[in-house]
């Protein structure tokens, strides 16, 4: 089980031929075990990038290499934690059932979960601190607990690359801390992490690299180098040109906060 090396070359994604591309000529490489925060304004193509990385988008221009092998040969090693709104939480399954779904890829057709699969599910629930909720129906869980069920499910997939879409948005402190603890733990297991977030402070504090995205890559470097005021203006300021100056003001505040934080740390 070699850790993942992810290489994205000239990836361009268009949803509509007439519209500008959702992602334009995106090229970056992630070495094994690295933690990358993907930061950008709404509509910057963060979710599109993730969808491309898990193979949810049809083949577009560019290529994605995992372990130096073209995308398609190694997909089972990529897990994706989507935003919570993606599924119907009134579906009649309990937390344990959802986590077990993470094992279905490894299980294959016509096979029932083995004792080992049950053990993995139990371990993943424990790791996310929700073992006590295993038998709980998912609609009885709080938002943060639901998120942790999703994280446990991704763990159960035993991925080499883990993608998380906005795991810190709209969750309680406990879940945020559990998620951060998970990031640290996965780091020691050499799992490559790619996480999208709005929170610049978090990106700076907990990640090895920041990928600043606004349809194309604005910056991709260590947080201190990537998150300069100039780069942030280039990433978020572009929205101002679309007549969303108010957004720009809103988004600029955290960056100023960050600058202040960075200076005080330096």
């Amino acid at each position: 089980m070699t850790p993942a090396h992810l290489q994205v070359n000239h990836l361009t994604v268009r949803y509509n031929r007439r519209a500008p591309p959702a992602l334009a000529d995106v090229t970056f490489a992630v070495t094994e075990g690295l933690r990358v925060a993907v930061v950008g304004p709404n509509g910057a193509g963060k979710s599109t990038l993730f969808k491309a990385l898990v193979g949810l988008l049809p083949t577009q221009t560019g290529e994605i290499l995992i372990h130096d092998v073209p995308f398609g040969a190694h997909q089972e090693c990529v897990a994706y934690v989507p935003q919570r709104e993606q599924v119907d939480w009134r579906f009649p399954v309990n937390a344990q059932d959802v986590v077990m779904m993470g094992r279905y890829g490894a299980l294959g057709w016509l096979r029932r979960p083995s004792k080992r699969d049950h053990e993995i599910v139990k371990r993943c629930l424990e790791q996310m601190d929700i073992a006590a909720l295993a038998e709980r129906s998912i609609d009885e869980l709080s938002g943060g607990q639901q998120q942790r069920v999703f994280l446990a499910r991704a763990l159960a997939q035993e991925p080499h690359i883990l993608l998380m879409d906005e795991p810190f948005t709209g969750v309680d402190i406990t879940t945020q801390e559990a998620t951060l603890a998970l990031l640290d733990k996965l780091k020691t297991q050499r799992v490559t992490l790619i996480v999208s977030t709005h929170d610049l402070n978090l990106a700076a504090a907990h990640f090895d690299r920041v990928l600043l995205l606004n349809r194309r890559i604005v910056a991709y470097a260590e947080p201190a180098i990537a998150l300069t005021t100039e780069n942030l203006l280039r990433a978020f300021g572009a929205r101002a040109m679309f007549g969303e100056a108010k957004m720009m003001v809103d988004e600029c505040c955290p960056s100023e906060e960050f600058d202040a934080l960075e200076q005080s740390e330096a």
Partner: protein
Amino acid sequence: MIEILTEPLAYAFMQRGMLASVMVGILCAVVGCYVVLRGMAYLGDAMSHAILPGVAIAYLLQGEILIGALVAAIIVALGIGFLTRRGSIKEDTAIGILFAATLSLGVALISVIKTYALDLTHILFGNVLGVSEMDLFLIALLSAGVLLTIALLYKELLVVSFDPVLAATLRLPTELLKDVLLILIAIVVVVSLQTVGVGLVAAMLVTPAATAYLLTRRLPAMMLVAATLGALASVIGLYLSYYFNIVSGAAVVLTATGFFFLAYLFAPQRGLLWHSWRRQSRANAPASKK
């Protein structure tokens, strides 16, 4: 007292009708769980009307009506899948188009056959007392096939229904699984033709499953409860039909609807009374943090 229950069963046609109803009741309920959870009630209704041209053509060619209906239902099922695949048309639009088209084609064909001897009301509302031994055999065979498929594809159908994105990242053939489900619904609709008729299949697909949804928390339990309710509604409905001279399909559906409203009112946690009781006890209790 016992005679009330045994008397109808003295007739062979009642025995066959009862057996067919119970099998269809179970089958509809189990497949109906997916129909309810995936929000495909409209599709089930459309599919049931779509088999009309198949029935007419089978009649014209003097073939087996069940086979004609099955072919028509599967063509429509795959047609809906095909129209929605590229995302250019929404599913309910695709269903609306094909639903109306096939229904019209069926009516057109039937109006062409001036000497249409087959009773249209039997197709619309079923003719459970006319179930032959051959019908019974076909229903049993198709039911076994559908239930076996659902058992074998349990985890794949579960994940593709709950989280299609996960299914895609797990490299499951999501479109194929969707088609499988559509074909299963098509078969169920056809099997129900004889007992409840095309007009009421949708109710048998949706009502017991929706009732079970209110009463259970996990899919296997939901299927089991739905199947029990489906079978029970079929038996009770047939007795009602026998003693009160009600059209059998309608009696079965009304019984199932009765179960639904009971569950809607009294179901623990999801029922109406439970909610109002909880709201009241919450109002009385001192406010506590969630």
